């Protein structure tokens, strides 16, 4: 193992599989029926079942937080626990938080608009406003764990999670942090769901109780996945993968770029990421076969595809949980518009 490369040492997640530390069962999952808001008929999505955060992380107070911030706190705590990290023994001014999201704190943004609709612009809620900012979850993670290093929230069309992982690794590589907690997530709201529906983006499986099919569209999802990234060398409780290299782009010659990234690596697995749109999936599979030949393909699972831009870490978590063995892997996502993200990983 190359000791200069960043290593994934801890995982925490709050997903439709529930709140969990480390790997998850990754059994096939059917979407849940939406009951949180009135729907014109049956509507389904991959939803996080309500739970009490303090039952998972003792002492955690989330009463004033939206679900995204609460899940970020739970997932980051579980990831640190999984990594066996005692923060009291670390220089917290050197620990970074990197958060990737597609929609940010959309629940509270809607709540703020609701207060404007009800009371007028002069009567909006001052408590809600600062929490509508996309960086609120990352800030709460810093505040709860007293992490005083770089605290960054990013969004990248189709590849927010992958770009966050790569940029967090960059902080470590350039000595700007000693460790990073990388999080990616989103919440699903009525306005977001109905936007997908109005744009005809949803899978037919969203509208009926039949088992999922591969038919067009995707099933929206929600959740947060957190991963601890640190330089190799600390005796860690677990050690999932080494992040060897990676890149992402919005277009251009993906095949040539990824070939250059792979160099003479012999791949054992290709983990499909991407946003689950039909054309993206087709393009993804094509790219994967062309690039990696007959290596084992770990397909994108709908539960992660449903998380869209922030789904990359859930794709990786599911792949780590399902993989048949150790070896060199490529986490590969493509978008419908020719973009791609490629991360080279050594799976432990």
């Amino acid at each position, binding site marked *: 193992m190359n000791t200069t490369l960043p290593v994934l040492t801890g995982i925490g997640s709050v997903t439709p599989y529930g709140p969990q530390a480390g790997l998850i069962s990754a059994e096939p999952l059917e979407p849940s029926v939406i009951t949180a808001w009135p729907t014109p008929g049956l509507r389904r999505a991959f939803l996080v079942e309500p739970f009490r955060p303090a039952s998972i992380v003792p002492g955690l107070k989330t009463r004033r937080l939206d679900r995204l911030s609460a899940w970020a706190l739970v997932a980051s705590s579980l990831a640190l626990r999984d990594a066996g990290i005692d923060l009291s023994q670390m220089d*917290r*001014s050197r620990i970074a*938080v990197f958060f990737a999201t*597609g*929609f*940010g704190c959309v629940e509270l943004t*809607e709540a*703020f*608009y*609701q207060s*404007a*609709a009800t009371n007028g*612009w*002069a009567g*909006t809620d*001052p408590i809600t*406003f*600062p*929490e*509508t*900012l*996309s*960086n*609120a979850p*990352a*800030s709460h993670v*810093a*505040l709860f*764990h*007293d*992490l*005083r*290093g*770089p*605290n*960054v*929230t*990013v*969004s*990248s*069309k189709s590849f*927010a999670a992958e*770009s966050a992982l790569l*940029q967090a690794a*960059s902080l470590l*590589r*350039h000595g*700007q942090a000693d460790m990073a907690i990388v999080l990616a997530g989103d919440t699903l709201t009525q*306005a977001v769901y*109905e*936007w997908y*529906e*109005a*744009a005809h983006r949803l899978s037919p499986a969203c509208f009926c109780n039949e088992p999922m099919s591969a038919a067009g569209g995707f099933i929206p999802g929600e959740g947060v996945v957190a991963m601890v990234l640190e330089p190799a060398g600390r005796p860690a409780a677990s050690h999932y993968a080494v992040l060897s290299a990676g*890149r*992402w*782009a*919005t*277009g*251009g010659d993906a095949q040539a770029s990824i070939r250059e990234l792979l160099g003479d690596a012999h791949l054992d697995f290709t983990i499909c990421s991407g946003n689950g749109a039909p054309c993206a999936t087709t393009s993804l599979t094509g790219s994967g076969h062309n690039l990696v030949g007959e290596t084992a393909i770990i397909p994108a699972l709908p539960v992660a595809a449903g998380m869209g831009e922030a789904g990359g870490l859930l794709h990786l978590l599911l792949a780590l949980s399902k993989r048949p063995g150790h070896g060199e892997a490529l986490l590969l996502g493509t978008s419908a518009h020719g973009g791609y993200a490629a991360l080279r990983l050594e799976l432990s």
Partner: protein
Amino acid sequence: MIDAKKTIVVTGIGVISPYGIGLSSLRDGMLRGECCLRQASELYPGFEGTVAAVSVLPPPVEGHHYSRSDRLAMAAARDAVEDLSGFDLRESGIVMASTVAGLTEIDPEITKGPAAWYRHGGLSRAASYQVSRVAASVGEHLGILGPACAVSVACASGAMAIALAANMLLDEAAPMVLAGGSDALCPFTLSGFNSLQALDQEPCRPFSQDRKGLNLGEGAAVLVLETLAHAQQRDARILAVLRGWAMTNDASHPTAPQKDGMGLAACIERALEMAACSVDEVGYVNAHGTGTPLNDIAETHAYESAFHGRSRPVPVSSTKSYFGHCLGAAGALEAAITITAMQEGALFPTLRLNNPIESSKVDWLRGELRREPLPVAMSVSAGFGGSNAALVFGSHCL
């Protein structure tokens, strides 16, 4: 001996601000001491207070729906690459900051029934909601296909975009990166800051003892960043060297800055350390300086701590007194102003600073424009959530 592959330089600056399009309009307006702040009610009937708005935004692109923040970003990016004619931008990267992004396109009606709102024209407007759209819009506008991401870290976003872009260049993720920020005025933020009682109804007075709050502005700035080696290879004009950058978090309070300013001080110290720059070398600090009671005193404490070893007080000003607080664009606009200050040897004063916070360590720039050579200057940003960012610029390579 400098490593040209590890030295980051600025080779282009694009701006759209309440002064107009182009860095020259911003520079000339500020050198004249012109204040762009106006009554908010002129733009948004029913809103009280003072804002600065852009009046020269190019018309929308037919067949596409871009938010006002997208359009500001596209105008600034176009201006930034104006001198790059003949250079193939396709492999370049984009890091754009925004906090407002497409909130300009959404209205409270959406909460009464999203499906109906989408049916009646909201669908295309909502498509520009996500903050990632700002970076994507710049890419579409200029035909850029390299790595793109948006940064949303409240008012520190713009400076962080520049810091992250510099890291991308060190990683050789792209040969050139367009980095900056863009945010538009909109009722959402006017209402939000009003609800927090953070707005000064009159033109703001940063660092004044009788300051009452901030004014909102809008605009965008984009810096063209590349390694010195790349710039030399294409014989580019170097406007400034990004010598150091740093990001920290206070981990102190969800909205208020750390009272003693220690998180921000640590950020400044780290940026200076990366720049291999002594505290005495810094000739000017373009401060965050919002004009809110809590920010300005915490920031003063940060300067007193970070520059405590200086032989003379550190010159500091807030240029938000000219055209308000442009939120996610602020850090990028202020980076552009900091570089302009170095180029012009002009230390822009804070406007309306008649009664400054008392500090023996800070030289508050006020009154007449001061002229002196500026080999090194710094831009400092902070935001809700306790995030801080600092950028150290040099006028030439070491």
